[in-house]
């Protein structure tokens, strides 16, 4: 077991429009089977970090039920622990709703942890990373903080609420809000390794400086005093900063190489099972280039789409380029194109919901169209 405990921070700046109104980003469904938080928790668990704090900023029900005791993430319920930490007071102004504030309110529970190091990961970015390797390298390097980044060459889009990192070799010069000024940027993955005591000091310092300070702000403020190093991440990296970025990250998985990178047999991504039966493809159904979860019944046409569990797609219905979430019903002859359909929605027979090219539509939770 690793000499670190894990902290999964809650999303506050990112807005996955529509979906986020019903649950935090960590609880959003991905690939019809996972939830976003399965990635950071599996990364920690696979790295032997089984003492984990999950900060939840709002609407805890679905996340708390999904995570449970963590047995499905291979977290030993006696030796390991997934502790859910809720906000102790409602913020009357959203500016107070920072990750530092959440940590500050629970400093007692951070102090209590036995481990010397802490690994901090975000709940709203999809990637895989051996965090124990990062921890070992951090400890060996003598650095105060190690931060993970991803070099992007398409920095024009999808990173609007991220931070970018300026580097001098592998030393961090600054961590500042992303600006669309160049195409190549080092995007911060909001993933940090440091000693627990340093984290406690940073939280206190941040609070003393400004109630609006985030973790990135305070680390940026310390770049001249602390030895902060950056490690580059390779592979799939998808920060969920908007409905558009969520849709693109999902659709990218229809590329086999991309899916193989994120879902490697050596690095399992665990999730909670819903005990659904396999999916039935009835006579006359036509399915191409799609992921189909269990518990669905398909009688119509599905192309370039992701179908979650329990979805019913009626005779003659056509679903293209869409993400259809759990327990949706697509009626006979209905057409969906370029849509993200939230859970328990009903598309009535014959209804056509088609997004303009290059755009993504969103259908609300439990809605009937």
């Amino acid at each position: 077991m690793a000499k670190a405990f894990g902290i999964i921070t809650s999303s506050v700046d990112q807005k996955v429009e529509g979906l986020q109104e019903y649950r935090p980003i960590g609880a959003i469904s991905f690939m019809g089977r996972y939830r976003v938080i399965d990635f950071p928790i599996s990364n920690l668990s696979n790295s032997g970090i089984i003492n984990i704090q999950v900060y939840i900023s709002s609407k805890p029900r679905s996340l708390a039920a999904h995570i449970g005791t963590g047995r499905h993430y291979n977290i030993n319920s006696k030796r390991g622990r997934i502790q859910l930490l809720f906000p102790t007071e409602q913020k009357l102004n959203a500016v107070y709703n920072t990750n530092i504030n959440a940590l500050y309110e629970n400093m007692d529970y951070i102090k209590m942890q036995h481990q010397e190091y802490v690994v901090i990961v975000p709940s709203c970015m999809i990637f895989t990373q051996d965090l124990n390797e990062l921890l070992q390298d951090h400890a060996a390097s003598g650095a105060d903080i190690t931060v993970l980044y991803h070099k992007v060459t398409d920095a024009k889009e999808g990173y609007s609420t991220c931070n970018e990192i300026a580097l001098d070799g592998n030393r961090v010069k600054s961590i500042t809000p992303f600006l669309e000024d160049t195409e190549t940027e080092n995007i911060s993955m909001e993933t940090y390794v440091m000693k627990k005591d340093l984290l406690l000091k940073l939280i206190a310092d941040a609070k003393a400086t400004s109630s609006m300070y985030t973790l990135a702000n305070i680390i940026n403020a310390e770049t001249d005093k602390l030895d902060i190093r950056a490690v580059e991440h390779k592979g799939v990296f998808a920060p969920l900063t908007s409905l558009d970025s969520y849709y693109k990250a999902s659709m990218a998985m229809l590329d086999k190489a991309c899916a193989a990178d994120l879902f490697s047999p050596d690095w399992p991504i665990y999730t909670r099972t819903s005990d659904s039966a396999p999916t039935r493809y009835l006579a006359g159904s036509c399915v191409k280039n799609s992921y189909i979860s269990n518990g669905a019944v398909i009688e119509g046409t599905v192309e370039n789409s992701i179908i979650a569990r329990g979805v019913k797609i009626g005779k003659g219905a056509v679903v293209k380029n869409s993400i259809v979430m759990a327990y949706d019903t697509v009626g006979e002859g209905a057409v969906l194109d370029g849509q993200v359909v939230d859970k328990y929605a009903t598309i009535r027979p014959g209804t056509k919901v088609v997004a303009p090219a290059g755009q993504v539509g969103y259908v609300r939770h439990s809605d009937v169209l």
Partner: protein
Amino acid sequence: MKQNEMLAMILAGGRGSRLLALTDKVAKPAVSYGGKYRIVDFPLSNCANSGVDVVGVLTQYESVLLNSYVAKGGLWGLDTKDSGVFVLTPREKADAGLDVYRGTADAITQNIDFIDTYDPKYLLVLSGDHIYKMNYDKMLQVHKAQGAAATIAVMPVSLEEATRFGIMITDENDRIIDFEEKPAHPRSTLASMGIYIFDWKKLRKILVEDKDDPNSAHDFGKTIIPTLLNGGEKLVAWRFEGYWKDVGTIDSLWEANMDLLTDNNDLQLDDPTWKIYTEDATVLPAFIGPNAEVDTAYITQGASVEGTVKHSVIFTGAVIEEGAKVIDSVLMPGVTVKAGAVVTRALVADGVTIGEGAVVGSADSKAITLQAQDV
């Protein structure tokens, strides 16, 4: 209401030799079924859904996989404080050496000490190789209401089929007045399903008496039920309606899978109020490729279909490459069908690879082809 009023014992010791190569390395109850399940998931899920919280699984043959599988009681939610799934194999005792179970009844007899630790009022005896959904609690209510010593679940079959079953002859109140094993001329069409509820005290007494009888078959059907009948005890038949299948042969296992392809099949595996639980695989949803053709299929997560699938059941992790064809077949977990291969009317065993261009089975063959080796 008392916890553990009724204990269940699943007889899972059979060699299942009619399943040929499928049971070479796994016991019959561990054989895969329906895309993602194992046969033993059915009695275990039925127990969990019926509120029967302690289940003993009696195994002895090649049971390492079965043992470690059923030991994960949490798969069925049977891992609460006072519940559990317990593997019971023959044991060496202070007063007796190690010996195999000599019959279905002997398997229970050898585990009287286990049952006694729970001190149940009723004992539910099940078979580990039937596919069906049943609410054992409803059966128990009838058993109690009738004040029976034993209640036997029965299913109406045709007169022709009746010659292959143990047949119960009942009076108008469902009381069993006689019993015939595979009668040439059946006097009834109520077939025993091999599912019994016993008054534990009465059964225990008979088991202890039967234990040292050198002429006994130590079998429920052959020994215990006749003994109860002859002793004047009240035996009751409880009629079951619904899907039930003994998957004892390759053909019947294939058929039971094919049954899932009919619209609104009787088994209703997707009924949310009576789920069948099983081990969850850490895999992606099923991937259906850009050039795939899928027509009438039952496909589970972790499968990858880039070829053609017609009227088939595809299990976890099965891979069907572009240009391959799978028709009227069952692909067990981890099967790969390479490009250009054609599989027809076949049951392909776990992990087998069908090489490029290979042909397995035939639309014309009467029997189903079991493919248990790479080809």
